[in-house]
């Protein structure tokens, strides 16, 4: 199982799409590793600079409808090869969310109020978080502040994370 803790990057916008996460022109790559420099290259977000702001990030927190658009699994892969295995948002586009779990990564949905609170209280630089899959909660710290946010994860999603993805799960069963 992958590790789910570390530095947090906040992306303060809804509807961040897969073209922004990894532009189509890089879909000619046939290894995941090759996607590494291009993550979030086309993200339209004031003051965000993908070449500066992704360093050491392990967890991304964003708003609603994260990962909408194309089915490209290159989007989760581009996160994965940059060391990011968790995206937390109010909700996700179906295919992106499934792709994350299919790769053994976490797409965690929190209530809108909790997302608001995370942005309000923790989004200044320096936040660190950890996902507790047994306790179904996120523990986040920034400076002197710390907080705990509960989430629900279906048995299926958890089974995929534990199996390291859908190929491993399905190959045993079907």
């Amino acid at each position, binding site marked *: 199982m992958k590790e789910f803790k570390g530095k947090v990057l906040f992306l303060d916008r809804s509807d961040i799409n897969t073209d922004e996460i990894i*532009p189509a022109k890089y879909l*000619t790559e046939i290894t995941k590793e090759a996607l590494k420099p291009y993550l979030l290259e086309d993200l339209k977000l004031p003051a965000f600079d993908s070449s500066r702001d992704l360093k050491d990030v392990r967890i991304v927190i964003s708003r609603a409808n994260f990962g909408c658009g194309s089915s490209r*699994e290159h989007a989760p892969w581009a996160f994965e090869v940059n060391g990011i295995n968790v995206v937390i948002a109010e909700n996700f586009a*179906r295919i992106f969310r499934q792709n994350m779990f299919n790769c053994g990564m976490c797409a965690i949905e929190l209530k809108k109020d909790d997302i608001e609170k995370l942005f309000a209280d923790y989004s200044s630089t320096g936040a660190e978080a950890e996902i507790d899959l047994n306790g179904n909660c996120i523990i986040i710290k920034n400076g002197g502040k710390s907080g705990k946010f509960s989430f629900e994860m279906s048995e299926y999603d958890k089974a995929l994370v534990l199996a390291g993805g859908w190929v491993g799960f399905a190959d045993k069963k079907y």
Partner: protein
Amino acid sequence: MGKTIAEKIFESHLVDKPFEDTFVLKLDRVFCHEITTPIAITDLEARKMDRVFDPDKIKVVIDHVTPAKDSKTALQGKILRDWSRRHGIKDFFDIGRNGVCHAIFPEKGFVRPGFTIIMGDSHTCTHGAFGTFAAGVGTTDLEVGILKGVCAFKFPETVKFVLKGALKPGVYAKDAILFIIGQIGVNGATNKVMEFTGPVVDGMSMESRMTLCNMAIEAGGTSGICYPDGKTVDYLWEFISDEYSSKEEAFKAFEIWKSDSDASYDAVYEYDLSDLEPMVTYDYKPDMVKTVREMEGIPVDQIYIGSCTNGRIEDLRIAAEVLKGKKISDNVRAILSPATPKIYSMALKEGLIEVFQDAGFCVTNPTCGACLGMSNGVLAEGEVCASTTNRNFYGRMGKGGMVHLMSPATAAATAISGKITNSSLYKG
């Protein structure tokens, strides 16, 4: 209680329910193209699982970048080609016979009512026009589909759209779906099946229904879906005439793929589209929609007619009717990509290609082309394209470019004036 069409398809294809709300379905078709499949193939090879569940149910095309533009895209094509040969996949459409996936697969008769279909492509929802549960998936789902012929989904909650009235002349399926997405938003149908019914849908050709279902994903929908009817039978007849003694018999067999009147829906939207005007998007999300009237006069640099949304023969006929005898503005360049070789040939025979060329269009081979800015038709920074495609995301057709989504009629009128224009201006 009654069931929706999607629930019926799920029930008839259920293989396993490993957990509550996890439905593992048997697949009737797995469609593949050269962008998302090669990584699945190389991963299966690396896992020593280079097998396919059924070569006759897998259909393959090279469509996104074709002919290859560089060594990397050539390699993607080669991996797909070699794999298809190695596994005896007969329905592999290579250069010269290839077209945009969601146009060529229905055209070849691979889609039937009641089927389950996945593809590593978000616009797979297009095939729902035939009363099919068709969903875009990522590479891992595709991999398992190729290997085992199954895919997992949540319960298919359905949102029903009842489209009433009749579309005015000059208003098309594209305008209807842009209007709907504008109403419910890009997140309005996430995790839901979008069922389209009502007199407007009944009156639509199969091509128009494909346009409608094609953009379900732009509202987050898992699949678009229409009920099969006489038009579905007519469209498929050349492929099914061996299986049924008459069209009536085929219709009877297909009729079971329809929602019950007491089925339950997550939501029902009713729209009277009688007064709908031509629509166009104005920003970087497909739900940012205005009437063409409100956007009239905005200058563009490029016109693109093509794609799985609007590159079919009906679309070419509509655009050619507007363009006939006219020239495109000196301030623009215009590109047409007929979506399949068959559409290209029909357009040639009908004299449509001549109309486009005389007007000043560049006609390319069938391919995704400018739609996703991966091969031809890429915009320069700051340029604007009037496009019949389905996605206007920032960077989609080239970094710093702006895409306005619209119908083929509006795109043709815009080509003539060089500015966003209502096609009614050029009628008659």
